[in-house]
């Protein structure tokens, strides 16, 4: 049997008496002010994040169809989702989407940020910055509706354009590979603006002298970026990738509008399954169980990222 007692490191008598600093009226006032400033945010987080998370965990242990009162189900919902092929496929799709979408998003954003960081008139730089950021402020659903028209195999502009150079129509939305690729393209096109802005800020924070010193040592082009820019930009890369991965794991609007998860289940994502189970099939318990699993996955992936960041992220 394990002894759970905590060994006393030092006899209590030997501990020097610690006198708590007297709380001044000024200190109390400052703390009260801090609490007042924090209260709206904390209240928002508790009401809209903490309580729903707890609610989801509790609901995942019940059968509930909205209409009849909930009935305790124990782990039955988890057993059900672990044997549901659609759920398992949706996790696979979401992970595949995450890997390619985040990689493409970071690559595009970083390339464009490095390009704009070069010699360029200020006004042109501003135009590009605005243009790259603009899709992010649009509704993902609206963009997806428009993209659905553009990528239509028979009547879409994209196939018409590639047809001008003799390429046969591509089944963008009606083949398994094409549908996933299209969802990723649309998602990256909309989302890269955020990472792009982060990278622009990160690049501006790298002291010019370091680049000048590197240039004196003969480092130029790709070598300079790999050996100098990327390590110095690694904290920004970490933030961009963490945010990108968390967002990608929750992708919903693009596949929902563009492909409705099809063809087959090839673009069905975890959040789509949560929506379908809850609001189309009235299985709120199972939907919550999937939600809890997604929450755990996001936490695990983020934890791994932070763990890895100790080796790869360099703070100046």
């Amino acid at each position, binding site marked *: 049997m394990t002894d759970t007692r905590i060994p006393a490191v030092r006899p209590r008598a030997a501990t020097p008496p610690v006198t708590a600093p007297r709380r001044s009226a000024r200190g109390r006032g400052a703390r009260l002010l801090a609490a007042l400033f924090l209260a709206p945010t904390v209240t928002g987080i508790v009401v809209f994040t903490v309580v729903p998370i707890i609610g989801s965990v509790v609901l995942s242990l019940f059968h509930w169809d909205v209409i009849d009162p909930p009935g305790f189900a124990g782990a039955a919902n988890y057993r059900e989702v672990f044997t549901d092929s659609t759920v398992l496929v949706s996790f696979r799709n979401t992970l595949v989407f995450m890997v390619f979408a985040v990689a493409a998003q970071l690559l595009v954003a970083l390339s464009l940020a490095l390009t704009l960081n070069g010699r360029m008139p200020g006004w042109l730089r501003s135009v590009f910055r605005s243009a790259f950021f603009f899709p992010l402020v649009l509704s993902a659903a609206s963009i997806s509706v428009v993209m659905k028209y553009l990528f239509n195999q*028979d009547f879409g502009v994209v196939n018409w354009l590639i047809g001008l150079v003799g390429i046969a129509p591509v089944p963008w939305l009606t083949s398994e590979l094409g549908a996933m690729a299209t969802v990723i393209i649309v998602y990256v096109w909309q989302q890269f603006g955020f990472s792009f802005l982060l990278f622009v800020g990160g690049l501006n924070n790298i002291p010019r002298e370091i680049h000048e010193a590197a240039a004196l040592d003969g480092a130029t082009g790709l070598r300079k970026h790999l050996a100098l820019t990327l390590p110095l930009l690694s904290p920004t890369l970490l933030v961009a990738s963490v945010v990108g991965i968390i967002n990608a794991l929750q992708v919903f609007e693009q596949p929902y509008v563009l492909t409705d998860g099809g063809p*087959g289940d090839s673009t069905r994502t975890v959040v789509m399954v949560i929506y379908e189970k809850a*609001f189309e099939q009235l299985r709120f318990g199972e939907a919550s169980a999937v939600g809890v699993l997604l929450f755990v996955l996001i936490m695990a992936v983020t934890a791994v990222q932070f763990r890895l960041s100790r080796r790869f992220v360099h703070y100046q």
Partner: protein
Amino acid sequence: MTDSHHSRRALLRYGAYGAGAAALAGTAASWDRLTGADIPGRDDGSLVVATLGSAFSPAGIRTLVAGFRALHPGIKVRVNAVQAVDWSDFFAKILTQIAAGTAPDLVYVATEGVQLFARHLGVPLDRWVRRDAAELREYFADVHPSLVESMMYEGSLYQLPIEFNAADMYLNTRVLHQAGADLPADDWTRDDFTALLRRMKKANDSHFTPYFWTNRLWGGVVPWLFANGTNLLAESRAPGGGWLWDCFYPAAQRRGRGGGFRWTTPQATNGRVEEAYDYLAGLIQEGLCTRPEGGNGQNLIGVFSTGRVGVTPAGGFWAGGLHLAGMRDDAFDVRYFPRWRTRRHQFGAAGYALLRTSKKQDAAWEFIKYSARLDTLTELFSTNQTTPARRSMLAAGRYRETGPAHWRIFYDTLDAFPDTGPVPAPPQVAEVTQVLLKHTGTALASPRSVGPALRRMQGDLEKAMERDV
């Protein structure tokens, strides 16, 4: 025993925190669940009617409410026009309202949700229909019994149908002329249909696709299954319903009627189902037909009206849509769905369902009756965005401006082919639809994928139908 450095005072403090938390939790648990209805001003005592936002125009809704208020000044009505892209989305939003404790009294429900609502939420209208039989005789005489039967579940009537749409075939007349073809005959066959698509394809460029269809429950694969004398799920009739048929319909019309449809055993691997899929896969391979794409067919009006598509299945709702898109009344026409083994067509209907959570059920029944009146429907359906359930409303004047020339087909589909029935929509409709759409997408990827995809569809449908919803 645990050795601890905590002082007695600290222990007392933690104990007090714990007691406080327990007291708070106990107090919270003892409260009644707060719902949306507890928001001050939310429940003003009105009869709340939820409609699909796009189903009626704002002017139509205003007329509907004003007319009812004039008739029943003591009943306040509030129409909640829920914006949704399709029926499935609409039902999801209604269920959200129910979960939030703000359930409407009446919900506009289409065939896709009739049995789902009847089983879980609906109130049978039987007692009110029996009570007001004399008043309703004129309504039933004007409405085809197939529509009424599609609103029954296990012997009871849950809705009075006020609109429907059967899947007939729309043809672009300019595309027909380009192909040197005439409007097909009334009794055209599947082979005539295929030959027409080939002629159209030959007469147009590579950006033209003769036949367009949307992958959905209504108007997707199902009309082809019906035409080939089969269905996705084995179809039968529930017993009962005699109380209604005997009271309102003559012997000829009530023959074979029952207490509503039952869709039970999945039959996706049935030879005729596979044959229908093989046929569509062949059309796709030949470039005569678009690949199935999900959605509500919003882009279809554009491609049809500009002549990039020649033929598509649609109902009376499209006459108004094409008119709004700028098509002249003679720029398109409509024919019955082509014959295969049978001439059975599919339709979907809609009407108001009364929710059992409603505390104003008598007032709600008055609204249901009011909504099915001839004058009400004439006001409401003035723009040909649907086919009215009342036969008397389909007259030449209604279609003079919008077309099509053969508008009679919209209602004659029910009269000419009495076995015409609703799309298969059991209470498990959400899962059935999802399974149908997802496997249809993969089945039609190539002719070789039809068999394997239908076997997977069969397995998934069996699982869906086993589930007690």
